[in-house]
């Protein structure tokens, strides 16, 4: 008797699972404007870089393996339903692959946590990394940096109807949100002690708190903030001028100088012929922010 009851329960469960497996194709609708006019990048035919072991490996494979972020809108984000990556950093990665002779459609993107970026580059898990990777002297000891390809800075994101905040000096006593333990959080804590800091573990929670009037502002790199503002351009805006300097670079293995210089050349070429600007306007530019001037490339000598 009990056995029959259990069998029926199991059958019901299996049927529910089978029914669930029939779902809609495609992905759920997204907020914010769609990135439809993505620029097409010319693949450099006959490009060769035999001095770079990383390039040789990728050429043999037929594609690059690139590390990226998956939770920064219009910068480096992944659609949970289809698994496709999109955003400004992703466009830079695809641009670079085209300049280095491999079609951008072949790139395999991998999500790497911030703390493991250096390790992933050192043990060859990825060929290069494009994902709000700030260049600093400590990291240069472990990996190489091509670029910078974007000059970001810490800034503030507020609601459209917020009138009293033009910069960090107006934040005294107000609640400001950032990610726990991150550099923007620590800088805000050190330089502006009057601010009431709130920390969560993802920026999307911070932005949600901003939209529901729980906090007055969100602070992090302006590139990330612009991406979030693009999600809800009528409700959010980035204010003031950046109050720090965060140069974003492409992380490469430290010893592979040939790859680094090739990427520097490729970045310069793309900045000159307008592809960089087109990529920005198709992604971060959807928030209404005009494309800034591309930064100067830093070709530091081979170590």
């Amino acid at each position, binding site marked *: 008797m009990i056995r029959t009851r259990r069998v029926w329960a199991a059958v019901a469960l299996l049927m529910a699972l089978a029914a669930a497996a*029939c779902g809609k194709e495609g992905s*759920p*609708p997204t907020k914010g404007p769609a990135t439809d006019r993505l620029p097409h990048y010319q693949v450099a035919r006959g490009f060769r870089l035999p001095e770079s072991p990383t390039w040789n490996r990728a050429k043999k494979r037929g594609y690059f393996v690139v590390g990226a972020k998956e939770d920064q809108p219009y910068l480096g984000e992944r*659609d*949970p339903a289809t698994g496709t990556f999109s955003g400004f950093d992703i466009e830079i990665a695809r641009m670079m692959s085209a300049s280095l002779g491999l079609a951008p459609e072949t790139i395999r993107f991998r999500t790497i946590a911030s703390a493991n970026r250096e390790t992933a580059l050192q043990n060859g898990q990825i060929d290069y990394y494009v994902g709000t990777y700030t260049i600093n002297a400590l990291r240069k000891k472990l990996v190489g940096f091509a670029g910078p390809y974007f000059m970001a800075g810490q800034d503030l994101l507020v609601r459209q109807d917020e009138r009293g905040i033009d910069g960090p000096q107006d934040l005294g006593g107000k609640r400001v949100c950032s990610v726990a333990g991150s550099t923007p959080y620590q800088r805000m804590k050190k330089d502006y002690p009057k601010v009431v800091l709130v920390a969560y573990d993802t920026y*999307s929670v911070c932005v949600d708190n901003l939209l529901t009037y729980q906090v007055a502002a969100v602070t992090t790199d302006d590139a990330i903030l612009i991406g979030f503002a693009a999600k809800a351009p009528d409700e959010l805006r980035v204010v003031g001028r950046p109050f720090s300097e965060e140069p974003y670079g492409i992380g490469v293995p430290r010893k592979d100088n040939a790859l680094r210089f090739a990427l520097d050349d490729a970045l310069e070429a793309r900045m000159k012929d307008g592809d960089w600007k087109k990529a920005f306007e198709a992604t971060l530019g959807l928030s209404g922010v005009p494309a800034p001037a591309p930064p100067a490339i830093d070709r530091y000598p081979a170590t």
Partner: protein
Amino acid sequence: MTVKAAAATALYDIPGPRARRRHRLFGVLATVVLLALLGWIIHLLFATGQFTYTKWMPFEYKGIQELLLRGLGNTLKAFAIAAVLSLALGGLLAVGRLSEHAPVRWLSTLVVEFFRAMPLLVMIFFIFVALKVQPLPALVAGLTLYNGSVLAEVFRSGINSVERGQKEAAYALGMRKTQVMSYVLVPQAVRAILPAIISQLVVALKDTSLGFLITYEEFLHAGKLIASNLDYDLPFIPVVMVISPIYIGMCMLLSWVAQWVSRWERRSPKTEAVDVETAGAGTLLPGGVPPTAPGP
């Protein structure tokens, strides 16, 4: 499990008519309060818009469903590998602890006590961050070390709980130590501690969710990906409502298997010389005494 109201217990006597009326009154009161609580929670859910279409819409899509199923598959994969390895490690450490050679015994005791005292998450983080191991091997290694040590204690207490007469009779017949263990002690001990082993595997299944913290793409990680997406209005509560029953259901299934095995073994004549353990999740106390109640 439940106290029958008609029998006397140490606390309550068999209820007479006045007591029965009082109990019924309290019963009705308690039911009303609990239903009111439930109603308030449901009202809160509706009031904060947790049942809006935008929040539940992602689950209709095949891509999202496959993402969740893949996460579930990864959870079960990590659990299966960790379960097999921790059984093996537990057996090895138990043999070490029961060895007659003092250095082997001391080394095994040291290893077991160290890994039982360490928080599991610290071990997993250490292997992942300091030793730079990939997420799945790091998670499996941490689970194996911890659960292997606990299982070693379970095995040891099982072997020690076989009636002394069995061991003495076996030695009196001239059997050597290995033969005593493999023909007499282990078969009886294993039958007795099977429920405790399965309960410890439930703990291992629950602990696979720690993989979420080292970016292993398991079930909870897939849930978080969906839940922290601004496009779907940050559907935390719907995601929790979908994931929790599946997790709880899996663990309850395994616990029920442990209880069933315990009842089966108690009836079997092959466990006459040993006490079948209750099916409670086992974290043995330092010192090796099984607790009288399940541990976290």
